[in-house]
């Protein structure tokens, strides 16, 4: 989580159950087939993970087109590094780690470019993260669908204002529903750090979403 690691540096220490590798429909078996040139196997992997990865990167970046590009880049990297892949961890951990690194890299690029964020006009005075501008509409909304949409939009905007180190674990836990253990593997940090960051992220969100709670 602290630094972006290349795919070549992605090493796994834990061991995986042997049956996970021998199962011909498992992710590992598909990647093994991809390694020897089976494009159908790679297509199957893509079909399994394309929505998850696109969605995850979209939640991280709040930019759908960019998320699709980064999701494709994720699969390109998986394909390119297929020969170097070690089947010692879950494939999902591996691909989520790549996606996380790409998303964080993109967020940092945006920060360097100082893109004007339409959702973060109001920077805090101490130079911290931009404060969310969430004008509360006091008028009653009769349409519940509209209310739900508006709430979702507000949540997404609130997430996009979180610091990146809090954003990734929060999305992986509360949106994707992953375990602390898996998140710690994806982010290459300890479970305690993951729990702490998620707690802090929820605290930030509670402050920003007071009007909706």
């Amino acid at each position, binding site marked *: 989580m602290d630094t972006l690691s290349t795919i070549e540096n992605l090493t796994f220490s834990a061991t995986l159950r042997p049956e996970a590798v021998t199962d011909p429909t498992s992710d590992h078996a598909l990647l093994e087939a991809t390694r020897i040139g089976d494009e159908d196997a790679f297509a199957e992997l893509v079909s399994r993970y394309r*929505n998850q990865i696109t969605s995850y990167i979209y939640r991280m970046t709040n930019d759908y087109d960019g998320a699709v590009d980064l999701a494709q880049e994720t699969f390109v990297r998986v394909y390119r590094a297929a020969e170097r892949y070690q089947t010692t961890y879950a494939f999902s951990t591996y691909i989520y780690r790549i996606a996380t690194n790409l998303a964080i890299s993109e967020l940092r690029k945006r920060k360097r470019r100082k893109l004007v964020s339409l959702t973060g006009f109001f920077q805090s005075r101490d130079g911290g993260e931009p404060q969310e501008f969430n004008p509360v509409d006091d008028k009653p909304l009769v349409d519940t669908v509209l209310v739900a949409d508006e709430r*979702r939009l507000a949540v997404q905007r609130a997430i996009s204002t979180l610091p990146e180190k809090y954003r990734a674990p929060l999305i992986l836990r509360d949106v994707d*529903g992953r375990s602390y253990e898996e998140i710690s593997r994806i982010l290459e940090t300890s479970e305690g750090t993951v729990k702490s960051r998620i707690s802090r992220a929820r605290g930030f969100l509670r402050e920003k*979403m007071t009007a909706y709670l």
Partner: protein
Amino acid sequence: MRNMNCRRARREIEEVATGEVMSSSANDHLKTCAECVRFRDDRLKLQEMLSSLGSVEAPGDFDFRLRARLANEERGRQPFVMRNLSVGFRSAAVAAMLLLVGAALLFVSLRTPTDSSLSAKEGKPSTTTGDQSGKNTQQGSPANATVAAGIVPKADPSHVVDEKKNAVAEKVVTSKRSGFRPTQVASIHGDRGNGGLKTRDLASTEARVLRPNAIDVTGSSVFPIGTSFQSLKVSLDDGRGTSRTISLPSVSFGSERVLAQGPSPLLASARSDW
């Protein structure tokens, strides 16, 4: 004590996943603590909102675009074929390159003594420096004495040209600086032990000697200065008794002018006018 319980209870509320049951002690604490109950309710609402975000689907042409991207990647990587070659092939390539370099060095080292031996066969002693130069001058015949590049001995009579017999210089000293002729590098074979340490004197060059019979009178000689040392004089008469004489100096090319002005180019050189 109450704060401690609140902290523990809130930690449990934070860590518990949706649908999981909290511990009995945490539940007991929630029955008595309104703040923690509010914290739990906020947490559940927030969890509900985050879950409601749902999943975003990839576009329909995702696979197609990915295939196109992979194809482009492969095409873009074609120039770097060397990187994808096997280790054996790369090793062979490196070995071949080293062999070529070695052969080139061997060729250069073998070629240098051949040049000096050729000079010896032609009766041209190699130009040397210091004491060696004196020895060679004494041993060789005056006609074959070699003049070091750019230096003309003053007292050597063999270098003096008989102006009455020859209108042109008998000897022409060429140097690398003048650029008239390519020069050859002289070699000196030292006598250190039996090894015959070879050294090369790159500072001096062998002088080319031109003899009168070797000079091409047609003008295709390597020495392009005209044979006449006098300037061209043209007299013009307008028919009324008035005449004018125009003197055209000989063409000069820098230092070669000395050759044209002096009675003898070598003598001129000997006077340090070169």
